[in-house]
């Protein structure tokens, strides 16, 4: 593993609503090495998006970071001033969101959208701005005439490309991609992910890929963090994790996706591996116990290294219950 570019240490994030407090992220440790793609995989409510939003200080107002540190180039991003964060966003770390439609201002032409970011960062003449924007459009595989078009005139894949062009305009050393291809067709998905992957290789940049799709992880990630209920339940390099998944939730996620190579008549679902005794909110945000094969387990607090570079949150057996 090369030197870390970004390290998240013991991050706790919670939401406050009418005096009640819901913990969304509970003690996440995550390392993004330079030049690598780190995937965070989990389902809705696992805390994967909240973790990524914490990095750039983009959490919703109802959320607050209770404790932890996010170290990036010797700075704690949780401590930097607003002005400094403004500089980091876009120039050092940028983000691509799932919903390109919602992320692009519909009243601005693509050219304006891209040059807006350029203007904020570099002193360029109008002509230079335009040629730089056109270079970015070409880089993401769009033709020049897109420069004068509105987002509504573009297809979903093209919008996502524009968003990537905007995100890469500051040549960030870390690109956070939060479900960048979830709403796109498979053929477009592979093109977009290849685009992001090429940027990583050419610029020795790092990618934080937030996804729910193990197929995407298998194709593009170097390291994987599996999140469940606000915690990392398993982490490791992608080859190890696919060869030897240990946590029942990881196994469940992997086997609940139909695969063309499968000959199985029936899909296994996550609940075949993990069943949570706690209620719905509890399941989503803070499981205290798990039950597997009729045994109840405490959710323990520590990740254990079970083989080199493979960490699993192990289970403490509590008592057997019938179900």
């Amino acid at each position, binding site marked *: 593993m090369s030197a870390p570019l970004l390290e998240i240490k013991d991050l706790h994030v919670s939401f406050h609503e009418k005096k009640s407090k819901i913990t969304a992220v509970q003690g996440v440790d995550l390392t993004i090495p330079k030049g690598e793609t780190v995937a965070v995989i989990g*389902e809705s409510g696992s805390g994967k998006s909240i973790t990524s939003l914490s990095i750039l200080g983009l959490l919703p107002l109802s959320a607050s970071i209770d404790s932890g540190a996010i170290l990036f180039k010797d700075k704690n991003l949780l401590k930097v001033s607003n002005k400094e964060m403004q500089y980091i966003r876009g120039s050092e770390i940028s983000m691509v969101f799932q919903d390109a439609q919602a992320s692009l201002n519909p009243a601005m032409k693509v050219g304006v959208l891209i040059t807006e970011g350029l203007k904020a960062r570099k002193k360029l003449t109008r002509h230079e701005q335009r040629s730089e924007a056109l270079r970015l459009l070409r880089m993401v595989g769009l033709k020049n005439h897109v420069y004068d078009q509105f987002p509504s005139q573009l297809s979903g894949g093209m919008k996502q490309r524009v968003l990537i062009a905007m995100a890469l305009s500051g040549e960030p050393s870390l690109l956070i991609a939060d479900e960048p291809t979830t709403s796109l067709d*498979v*053929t477009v998905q592979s093109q977009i992910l290849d685009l992001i992957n090429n940027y990583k290789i050419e610029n020795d940049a790092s990618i934080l890929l937030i996804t729910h799709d193990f197929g995407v992880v*298998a194709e593009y990630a170097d390291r994987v963090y599996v999140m469940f209920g606000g915690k990392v339940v398993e982490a490791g390099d992608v080859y190890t994790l696919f060869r030897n998944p240990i946590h029942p939730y990881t196994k469940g996620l992997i086997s609940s996706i139909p695969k063309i190579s499968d000959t199985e008549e029936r899909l296994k679902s996550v609940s075949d591996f993990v069943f949570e005794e706690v209620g719905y909110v509890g399941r989503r945000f803070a499981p205290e116990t798990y039950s597997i094969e009729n045994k109840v387990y405490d959710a323990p607090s520590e990740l254990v290294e079970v083989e080199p570079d493979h960490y699993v949150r192990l289970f403490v057996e509590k008592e057997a219950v019938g179900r």
Partner: protein
Amino acid sequence: MSSIIQLHNLSKYFSVGGELHKAVDGITLDIQKGETLGIVGESGSGKTTLGRTLMRLYKPDQGQIFFEGKEITHLPEDKIRPLRKEFQMVFQNPSDSLSPHYNVGEILEEPLLIQDLLTPSERTNKAYEMLEKVGLPKTSYHKRLHEFSGGQRQRIGIARALVLNPKLLIADEPVSALDVSVQAQVLNLLKDLQKEMNLTCVFISHDLNVVHYMSDRVAVLYLGHLLEVAPKKELYTNPIHPYTKSLLSSIPIHDPELRNHSRKQIVLPEKSINPPHLVDVGNGHLVAADVINITTFDTQKEKQDISIG
């Protein structure tokens, strides 16, 4: 096996900004009794329009639809309504397609009410029976939609579609809005119910893995045209149309050891002006003729020799 639905040269056009958009263009297809036909295609391929047109939710612009041998293409609404209990639909997003104002019991009983079937108490019993079928507790009857998770809501959507005991179920992206773990449960449920109720299924999805899991036969749509249709195994192991090939090769492989598999160049053919003519290449495998050099083509024995251009 006999067909439950036959489509002959079916077309549905929309007018977009004064221009004619051929969403479904000249599709000829048979749906056999008891099978699950998967329909795959990207956005804009016309898969949803096809599903809705064959249910007569849209009025077709050209071609014919036969349901159990009887033409229903131009039946007026009052004649089509009694037939609707034979074909029902499960939609992508149950939060949009089911009413938040009704409780679950009312949602499930409404189709029976519209069809004027059963007495009120029988309808209630039927609703309870459907809840049990889709694996929801009896207490769900009096609850409203917002009290359920996404997967549970889709179970309600399925229960509503099946309450009339239809012969044909059209499921349009039924699991696309769900988390993968929930997805598996809903897919298994659909499979079980299909067997139990002896349903014919049209399963529409952009997800080739899911379609593979669910279907017996798969049809590939592209810009409103049917390009290829074949039994599942045949289509996934021996795709002929370059578009089908590139579609299949762009599915992520769930094994990092194989990540440098040669991904084929993605082929997005130009839309042909006329609907392609399908040729039977054997094994129930039909493919658009414009990619096959028919002169060098011998149906049964030399499938490898098909030249693609």
